[in-house]
């Protein structure tokens, strides 16, 4: 277990963007935990924030991709 934590992992060259999802989920859950007044609503609100952030990043990524691809 300690060795697993000691040495860096080799990540596959493709699909590294998927690692953004757990990070987004962590940000959404902690932010909503801090903000939520009703504890029972944390998960639903976190899910909505997660979708909102993911959507925003996808749009941002699409815009940047379009700028890089089509900018003269």
């Amino acid at each position, binding site marked *: 277990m300690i060795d*697993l*934590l*000691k*040495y*860096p*992992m*080799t*990540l596959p060259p493709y699909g*590294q963007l998927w*690692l953004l999802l*757990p*990070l987004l989920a*962590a*940000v959404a*859950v*902690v*932010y909503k*935990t*801090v903000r*939520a007044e009703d*504890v029972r609503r*944390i998960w639903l609100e976190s899910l909505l924030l997660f979708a909102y952030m993911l959507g925003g990043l996808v749009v941002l990524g699409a815009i940047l991709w379009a700028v890089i691809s089509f900018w003269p």
Partner: protein
Amino acid sequence: MFKTLLAAALAWLIPGAGHVFIGSRVKGAIIFVVIAATFWSGILMGGVMTVDRQAEPMWFVAEMLTGGHGLTAWRWQQSVMKKIDKDIGPVTSAQQYRDLRDEQLARRGLALVSPVEVIARAYSGVAGMLNLLCIFDVVMLVMMRTRQKVVRR
């Protein structure tokens, strides 16, 4: 004032403990699990050199905001670096030390290279910044409650 400082210190040292201290046990538990999982996922990806004060001082500051998690990882990194420094021996310049250090890290399979370096530090650093948010929240809640008590009196 003492209660505010104690809550902030607890929230820093053990993420989530500040919320437990002020009575929000569920929130504290969620914060503890999520921040611990995020921080140690970063260490799992980047290894012991993810927390590195010399190589990445800004990320180091963010990582230290996780309190006990960051300190544990830093202490571990320091113990590994002590062994490496022993093998390096005396050096004449900072540049020579850096070169020999990188060489030793690569030889031991501990060297962090991009993109793993960036992803690992983003995970552990973001965990620290999330804990900063929780520390602020705890401090604000304690201060507001103290103020409400004073107003009621």
